[in-house]
């Protein structure tokens, strides 16, 4: 068994911790009073420091220590959380990354800068609230609690020894422990391993109530614990001060605290643990596997699928029934293996969405807008490679929304909108596709300006009649930008065409809706999995090609008569509607005589259809997509290649491109005719 490199283990873990810390900080920035986020950030920093020191990342541990201390003060209520403080620590996280990547590098100067910013933020946070600062200087109040607790009968069998618990209570302050034996039965009824004793504890402590909860943390759900506050007793120095305020706060404490601990403890704990819960699900209880190994496995599965289809062909043409039976078994198993493999490759889009919180935070600062990012459906799972490739397009879309979509707070107020602009990022699965939607409540896309811009840059001819969707889609054309001025963010008209290119490459589609004044919505529909598709294997001339089955609507026969009739035309009539079609024999210049009975495969992308004329339909084919080499990157007609059962190669037709070509051809013919 290979032993993992501890440094590598630490790096992976640290990356996750940093992500967790950043998420916590960003959440905290929205809700500075959120104690749970303060705790979460503190815990993250604390863990990072501890693990760092353990694995020899001394500089990281020392640096992180300062951030941890700052948050410790926030946690203890000595310093309030402020936006400045959060930003200072947020900036520090980038530095922590550097310290993890290059521990030996020269980081002193930037460390010092960041730390002085942090110190300043802590000071500023501490100062305006003079009362809080003063409070931290006075001695904390001594609270007198009376606890009654009993543990479950089987507590001791299950390893909970009451004695250490009592010791822990004693460590909290002045403590008187008295046992209660009244539930103890006589010897003939005694189960000697059960616990019958319970305890009454008088505790005078300066520690918070949570310290008592911590003692019982592992048995809290099964035990009975009553906790009364016997009244605060100020430390001698403070008793002299006649502050009426103190009395009222004392009464309040007593009122809250005298409720049974279980009730007032359990409810908030449940409520607050939810956000943490959701985040934790992402990374926990997982076996970490390097991505390359997953890809290797994917390749093996792909090869198996290919070998299996070869076996199926052989078995199909042989009369050997036993061979056929085995072949069918192998087919079923490799199908199942493929499905399992697919699931393995699925990762939640949360990974992807996570990074946008930081982006939006930075964008808000850069643009001076107030922006709230709302994410939804983070648990939606998508193929790993899809997530990776979606990152860039989504960055462009989110940037575009922040930069062009949302108005400034003043503009929003002027039109009666909430000054806080919102961007919604959501993901959901629908019928073999994952739909990722970026929505903003900004000004919407200005159609006039889109048209003017498109005409000016020669993308469309002046006064071209366009459907609304087509008009909106123009924003994805290369060289298009409606920004009045080039900004740092959305750039110079590069970006949005990248979106279209990437989504096309993913065999996905883009849908744009926009309402003037109330925002726009861009939906990306992407097939769930990429690496293996079900395809229709066809022959054109001597070459074989694969058409993704998901795009195939139907297959028709093209009789020689019809073929003759339709020469020079580019439409076939399909149940009262004309469908443009492409003779692939012509497109590929096969220079062979057509089969007497050619077939038309009707494919569609959403509302648009096109017929592809092929020589022969060979049948269903499960296809492992191999990317085209860089050399062939410009070949738009094909989206990849695959190896066939007999070892031959088939090219995979790019449906989106062909449909677009068909529609283009239709438009030209219409214009001509």
């Amino acid at each position, binding site marked *: 068994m290979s032993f993992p490199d501890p440094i590598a283990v630490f790096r992976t873990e640290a990356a996750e911790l940093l992500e967790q810390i950043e998420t916590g900080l960003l959440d905290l920035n929205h809700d500075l009073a959120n104690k749970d986020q303060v705790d979460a950030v503190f815990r993250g920093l604390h863990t990072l420091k501890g693990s760092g020191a353990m694995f020899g990342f001394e500089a990281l541990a020392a640096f992180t220590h300062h951030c941890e201390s700052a948050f410790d003060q926030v946690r203890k209520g000595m310093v309030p959380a402020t936006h400045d403080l959060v930003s200072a620590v947020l900036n520090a996280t980038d530095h922590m990354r550097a310290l993890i990547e290059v521990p030996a590098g020269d980081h002193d100067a930037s460390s010092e800068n960041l730390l002085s910013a942090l110190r300043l933020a802590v000071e500023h946070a501490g100062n305006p609230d003079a009362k809080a600062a003063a409070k931290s200087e006075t001695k904390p109040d001594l609270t007198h609690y009376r606890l009654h607790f009993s543990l479950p009968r089987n507590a*001791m*069998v299950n390893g909970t*020894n*009451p*004695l250490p618990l*009592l*010791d822990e209570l004693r460590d909290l302050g002045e403590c*008187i*422990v*008295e*046992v209660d*034996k009244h539930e*103890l*039965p*006589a*010897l*003939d009824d*005694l189960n*000697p*391993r059960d*616990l*019958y*004793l319970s*305890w*009454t*504890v008088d505790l005078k402590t300066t520690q918070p109530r949570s310290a008592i909860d911590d003692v019982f943390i592992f048995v809290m759900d099964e035990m009975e614990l009553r906790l009364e506050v016997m009244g605060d007793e100020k430390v001698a120095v403070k008793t002299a001060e006649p502050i009426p305020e103190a009395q009222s706060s004392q009464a309040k404490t007593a009122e809250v605290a005298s409720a049974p601990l279980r009730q007032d403890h359990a409810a908030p704990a449940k409520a607050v643990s939810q956000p943490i819960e959701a985040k934790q699900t992402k990374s926990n209880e997982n076996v970490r596997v390097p991505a390359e190994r997953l890809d290797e496995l994917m390749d093996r599965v792909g090869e198996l699928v290919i070998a299996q289809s070869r076996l199926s062909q052989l078995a199909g043409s042989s009369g050997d029934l036993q061979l056929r039976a085995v072949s069918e078994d192998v087919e079923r198993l490799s199908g199942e293996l493929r499905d399992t493999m697919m699931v393995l490759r699925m990762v939640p889009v949360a990974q992807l969405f996570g990074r946008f919180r930081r982006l939006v935070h930075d964008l808000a600062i850069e643009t001076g807008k107030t922006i709230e990012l709302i994410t939804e459906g983070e648990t939606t799972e998508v193929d790993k490679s899809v997530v990776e490739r979606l990152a860039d397009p989504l960055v462009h879309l989110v940037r575009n929304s922040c930069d062009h979509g949302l108005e400034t707070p003043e503009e929003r107020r002027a039109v009666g909108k909430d000054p806080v602009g919102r961007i919604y990022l959501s993901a959901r699965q629908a019928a073999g596709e994952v739909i990722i939607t970026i929505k903003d409540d900004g000004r919407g896309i200005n159609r006039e300006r889109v048209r003017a811009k498109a005409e000016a840059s020669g993308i469309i001819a002046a006064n071209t009649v366009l459907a609304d969707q087509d008009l909106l889609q123009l924003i994805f054309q290369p060289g298009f930008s409606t920004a009045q001025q080039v900004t740092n963010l959305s750039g110079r008209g590069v970006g949005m065409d990248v979106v279209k290119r990437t989504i096309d490459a993913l065999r996905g589609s883009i849908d744009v809706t926009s309402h003037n004044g109330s925002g726009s919505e861009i939906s990306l529909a992407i097939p769930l999995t990429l690496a293996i598709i079900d395809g229709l294997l066809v022959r054109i001339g001597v070459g074989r090609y694969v058409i993704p089955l998901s795009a195939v609507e139907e297959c028709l026969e093209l009789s020689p008569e019809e073929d003759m009739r339709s020469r020079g035309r580019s439409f076939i009539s399909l149940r009262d509607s004309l469908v443009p079609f492409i003779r692939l024999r012509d497109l590929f210049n096969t220079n062979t005589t057509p089969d007497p009975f050619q077939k038309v495969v009707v494919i569609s992308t959403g509302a648009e259809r096109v017929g592809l004329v092929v020589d022969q339909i060979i049948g269903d084919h499960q296809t492992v997509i191999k990317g085209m080499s860089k050399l062939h990157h410009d070949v738009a007609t094909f989206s990849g290649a695959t190896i066939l059962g007999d070892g031959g190669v088939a090219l995979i037709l790019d449906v989106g491109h062909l449909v677009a070509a068909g529609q283009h051809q239709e438009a030209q013919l219409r214009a001509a005719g």
Partner: protein
Amino acid sequence: MSSNETVAVLSWDESLTLRTISNHCDELLLALNEKSAVAIDISDDQPVDLTLIQLIESARIFASTSGKKLTLLKPAAGHLRDVLERGGFLQNISPEDSNFWLHDGVK
């Protein structure tokens, strides 16, 4: 029973914890059923936990309701004394309990 007037001394010179407490429970119950008086000798330096104290307290209830006499051969010391203290058995201790565990007080 025939041996009703006899006294049994149980010498427990071993670890007296949860793991083995059932054996001691059986032994003690048997002794209390058979004898009119039982004295337990507990080693000062063997590990002891709450199950032992529960056992003895439970046996005291049994003894008092069945008219038997149960005593410790010597006052609690060492680990036993320690567990009594940590477990809050000595806080507000009644004269009877004090007499039983620590052999002090009257009666």
